[in-house]
């Protein structure tokens, strides 16, 4: 692409091409565009305390591996996959125990912060209390989902990925994503019961 195209106007693949030949500014533009997504993805796996560090690590890996990006998938899909792998590596490295997604145990999630950060939309103390209970219950119910269902549910609703993006990042068919997501929602609604 022409150098005359300003970075903010460039497409992702053009920025990747530039970054691949050492253009750090182009890579910085990519970081600015997608760092929220990377953090949100990492956040679903390692929790709020480690998400920032893991997200940064994912970006460094992306920088180092940029020459291996062949453009068959969207850059964001490739980046999401790196983010997930980095988060999983971190979990394995730090905990030295079988893979557990963040929140599976129900004891290491951000329950206090959820309570602290609840929206003030419900000014009625009782309504607000019900909301808090619902969110806390949702968190606990998520922890009881099968790994794959919880992973897909979180990537869809908290990391805000589209179904095909999830499929691409996890290397599964989009139909699998739909099925697992449907089961997860069905189960969560059932377990939330009258609190939802």
């Amino acid at each position, binding site marked *: 692409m022409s150098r005359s195209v300003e970075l903010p106007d460039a497409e992702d693949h053009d920025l990747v091409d530039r970054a691949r*030949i050492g253009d750090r500014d182009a890579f910085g533009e990519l*970081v600015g565009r997608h760092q929220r997504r990377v953090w949100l993805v990492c956040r679903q796996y390692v929790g709020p305390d480690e998400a920032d560090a893991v997200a940064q690590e994912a970006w460094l890996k992306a920088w180092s591996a940029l020459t291996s990006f062949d453009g068959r998938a969207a850059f964001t899909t490739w980046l999401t996959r790196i983010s997930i792998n980095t988060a999983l590596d971190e979990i394995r490295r730090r905990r030295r125990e079988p893979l557990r997604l963040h929140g599976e145990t129900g004891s290491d999630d951000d329950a206090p*912060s959820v309570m602290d950060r609840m929206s003030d939309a419900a000014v009625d103390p009782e309504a607000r209390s019900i909301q808090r209970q619902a969110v806390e219950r949702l968190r606990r119910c998520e922890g009881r989902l099968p790994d794959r269902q919880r992973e897909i549910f979180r990537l869809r609703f908290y990391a805000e990925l589209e179904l095909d993006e999830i499929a691409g990042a996890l290397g599964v068919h989009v139909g699998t994503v739909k099925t697992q997501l449907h089961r997860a929602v069905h189960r969560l609604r059932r377990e939330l019961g009258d609190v939802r």
Partner: protein
Amino acid sequence: MTNHLNDDQIAAVVAGLELEPGARAHLDGCVGCRRALADFEETVARRRDAMLAGLPDLEAQRHAIMARIEDAPAVVGPRGRGVRHTLLALAAAAVLAIGIAALWPERSGDRALAGGDVAVATILEETEALLADDAIPGFEPIQWDAEDLGLDSEVPTPSTTS
């Protein structure tokens, strides 16, 4: 459709799956079903908002990332769609080189040149032998005379000269 959506259908809507047209039409017009849908989605949204509240200072994070990249070795790779194209180009060049190498001795070697001459001579001999074989249909010798050649008035033949 007048029946309310069941749990399975509501879960399908939340999951982004397609509903049957009848169910979709009911959902669009039923406050109760929309409420059931919204209750769950609002709970999920609140949890998401709580997570987003923990989002770090993105500008600071970006600076941190770029600072670490400054210290990292520069990524210098091929321009274009990646190493795949480079490898393909190298493979094509290698095949071409092998092909040229294989042809080279036949073009420049003395032995190969002599062998080529022998082959040509053999072919010519065989062809001449075939042409000389009267038994081959269509290759019988033709008995030409002057009339056939249109020479009777212009050039006297030995038989008309006395």
